[in-house]
């Protein structure tokens, strides 16, 4: 980014909805499957078929619109977007055009401690297309898989409010988290259930007149989005600095080369010949239904993170980690409830969840799941820790056991002998043994080499097979050494 040019980005997100069946027929929406096995006459676009709108799609759109502060339209209209492509069975996509279901709204972000709001233009419902499969047949011909055709999508269009690459990524992450919190989308960029196109342009710093934009496609990770915009900024600024003009076009990102390349120019752009879909009556969303959906909305990531900081004194960083996905946030809330302690306990739970438990899940490839660990069990671990029964290494072992096998932490601690030894006489015996075994070190410590205390503590812990309560061991040694 040179000093003279201001980056301007608007993002269009296509999010597949987690409905059980497709938007206009009863076929399953499950990902994968042998090609053309999740299909029926309707999603194959056979002659004579008609769409029957899945009510859950509308509900999910309303849910999303409410969560993003949009105005839900009492009446919205489906429209046909006409173009020829083999993966588009009817020769048109049923979408919404002039009258989308949600208008306005926005996504709030915090970037480097600064609050920002990226406004939304609209959200509309539409059907997904199928997929062309190249080189699958023995004779090298291409095939079409229509399993995905008719899977419901929400298209979420932002205003060109984004001014940096970090902001673009943050917007996308926040939006993704919200959709996942709402349970309407699985947030999977690689499988394409959460897709993003970026409208990118540059304008002179200080200007308010937007430059000519290019639409970038095919970025299926946050990293690729970053790369694509970076490349585009370089490309466009070189053109502009050389006195040229950016041509409005659609550009495809090539992940192998980290470049975008022209796909079609504005002149080649389709004339989609939109018109209202005559096979579907206008979608009516009565006010009472909107209220019903509003009441069922979960607490969203930002509100939750704010609550964690305010009520539980967590850091912004921890609050962010805990609200990155709904499962983690719900697990955290449930654990805090089960522990019933104050901010101190909550902080301990947060540390375990984002530290040890996250590591276990990561090692097991379990994603955001917590294996067989329950919030009650995690709360139990914290309770045992606070009572002095469990210490560092013991905690790790108990959590590992609970993650793999489940169960009651107290029982695991007892049966595996993981309890910390805080008993003064047991600790004293172990200390005496070490003081006898290392007379030289004891002399040097007394002569002023105070860092040798750590060595001696370590030896005591080793003698106690790691089960000594570190605080008790420390205090005992100091007392005996007269420190």
């Amino acid at each position: 980014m040179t000093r003279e040019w201001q980056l301007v980005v608007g993002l269009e997100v296509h999010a597949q909805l987690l409905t059980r069946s497709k938007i206009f027929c009863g076929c399953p929406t499950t990902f994968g499957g042998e090609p053309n096995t999740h299909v029926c006459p309707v999603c194959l676009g056979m002659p004579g078929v008609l769409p029957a709108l899945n009510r859950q799609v509308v509900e999910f759109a309303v849910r999303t619109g409410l969560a993003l502060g949009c105005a839900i339209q009492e009446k919205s209209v489906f429209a046909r977007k006409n173009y020829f492509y083999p993966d588009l069975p009817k020769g048109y996509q049923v979408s919404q055009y002039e009258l989308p279901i949600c208008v306005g709204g926005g996504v709030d972000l915090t970037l480097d401690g600064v609050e920002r709001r990226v406004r939304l233009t609209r959200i509309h419902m539409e059907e997904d297309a199928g997929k062309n499969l190249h080189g699958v047949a023995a004779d090298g011909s291409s095939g079409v898989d229509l399993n995905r055709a008719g899977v419901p999508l929400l298209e979420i269009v932002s205003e060109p409010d984004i001014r940096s690459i970090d902001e673009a990524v943050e917007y996308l992450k926040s939006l993704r988290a919200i959709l996942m919190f709402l349970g309407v989308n699985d947030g999977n960029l690689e499988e394409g259930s959460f897709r993003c196109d970026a409208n990118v342009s540059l304008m002179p710093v200080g200007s308010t007149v937007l430059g000519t934009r290019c639409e970038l496609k095919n970025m299926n990770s946050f990293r690729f989005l970053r790369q694509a915009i970076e490349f585009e900024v370089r490309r466009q600024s070189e053109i502009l600095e050389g006195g040229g003009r950016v041509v409005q076009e659609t550009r495809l990102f090539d992940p192998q080369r980290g470049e975008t390349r022209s796909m079609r120019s504005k002149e080649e752009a389709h004339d989609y010949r939109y018109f209202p879909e005559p096979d579907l009556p206008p979608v009516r969303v009565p006010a009472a239904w909107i209220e019903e959906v509003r009441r069922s909305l979960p607490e969203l990531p930002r509100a939750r993170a704010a609550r964690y900081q305010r009520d539980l004194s967590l850091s912004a960083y921890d609050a962010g980690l805990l609200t990155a996905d709904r499962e983690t946030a719900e697990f955290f809330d449930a654990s805090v409830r089960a522990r019933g302690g104050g901010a101190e306990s909550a902080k301990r739970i947060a540390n375990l969840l984002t530290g040890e438990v996250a590591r276990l899940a990561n090692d097991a490839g379990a994603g955001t799941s917590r294996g067989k660990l329950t919030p009650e069990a995690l709360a139990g671990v914290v309770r045992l820790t606070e009572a002095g029964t469990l210490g560092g290494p013991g905690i790790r072992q108990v959590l590992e056991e609970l993650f793999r096998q489940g169960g009651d932490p107290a029982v695991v601690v007892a049966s595996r002998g993981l309890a910390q030894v805080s008993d003064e006489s047991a600790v004293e015996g172990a200390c005496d043994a070490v003081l006898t075994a290392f007379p030289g070190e004891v002399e040097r410590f007394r002569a002023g080499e105070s860092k040798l205390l750590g060595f001696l503590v370590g030896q005591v812990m080793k003698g106690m097979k790691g089960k000594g309560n570190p605080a008790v061991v420390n205090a005992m040694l100091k007392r005996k050494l007269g420190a």
Partner: protein
Amino acid sequence: MSAPALLDRSITDLAGALSRREVSSEEVTRAALARIEATDERLHAFLRVVPERAIASARGSDARRARGEVRSPLDGIPIGLKDIFLTKGVETTCGSRILAGFVPPFDATVVERLETSGAVVMGKLNMDEFAMGSSNENSAFGPCRNPWDLERTPGGSSGGSAASVAARQVFGALGTDTGGSIRQPASLCGVVGLKPTYGRVSRYGVVAFASSLDQVGPIARTVTDAAAMLGVIAGHDPRDQTSSLLPVPDYRAGIEEGARGLRIGVPREWLQGGSEAGVERRVREALAAYEAMGATLVDVELPHSRYGVAAYYLVAPAEASSNLARYDGVRFGLRAPARSLADMYGETRDQGFGAEPKRRIMLGTYALSAGYYDAYYLRAQKVRTLVRRDFDRAFERCDLVAGPVSPTVAFRLGEKVDDPLQMYLADVFTISCNLAALPGLSVPAGLHPESRLPVGLQLVGRPFDEATLLRAARALEREMGPSPAPEAIG
């Protein structure tokens, strides 16, 4: 040879004979099959006859009747289907080469309802390609002829349906009506044709031409038969979200109540010399007959109906251009071999579509194009609203509107084939009713004084008031006596 007396009966009569066991459904069905065999080489009403399926359902009907079970007034009665209705396991072409060989995996809702009610499906009837036409000459498989004069057209697009019913091959048939495609051929073949209110009958499994105008309806030899058929096919279908939730009345219940007390609106615009003299004369006589029966004639105005044809020929092709996009050679029907994808699309569609669908795809694509949408499609939709308002205003003063169906009697094959505009004007009286989503019916009003060809009277009613149309049509039918059978077909 002329049709045996058995085939001359109405559905209602035949249902009585079947219930009295004077005749079996299998005998009737075999007689109809023989009639088709004997006449269809000349008539060409059928694109496909399904004798095995027909005999099997006739036997099923007879077996049920033997157990005392009768499913509907159509149980055991031979019925024909325009080839626009999807029939499971039976090729469905919609009169187009592009669908040649297409065997649907399911039945249209109306086919399902007919068969569930015991009707015997005889086969698939000829039609203008994709229901685009008023003469049946746009059929990719050769035109159907008019049983009154084999050198003339039966009308269209449901020409095969009307001709087959008139020629006593079947007792009733289903057609579709987008701009007059049931009423006009019914009028030209001297039978009864009813286009119900938009939304009254499910369109699921009906190959789409213009989705906001298409409607399924019956063609039969008597008004009561048409009422019986409508009763079977009408009603909400969850697979068609434009189908109405309104309950379906018993259309035969008040059908004999006569015309007394009815207020019949006569649109000035429809009787201003736009029709040939013989047609207008029969229409005026029918109106006079209504007056004599105790109905009141009311002058009404439909000032926007003159924009109807223009609006229709924007809306219908626009929707058609989109509806016909799925015939791309990728998934079903014809696929022309080609080197590239674009060539495959082009070749398939060039070889598969006839001239009329191509013309309408181009018209419609143009009307929807960026920069033209507002001037054409949107404006045409506004005309629809105005046409509907005209009718709403008229219905404040009358119970139904009456006038001609077609400005002419059946015309000669080839007469208008090179003049699409003249062909489009054949729909001038029927189109308003589709634009306004209202029910419309064609009932025989006698023969043209010189040509001795049938003339139909059109009745248009309030939304979902098919019952009043049927009652009024039945009154005229009773007054005129039974319509004669066409002689040309023998």
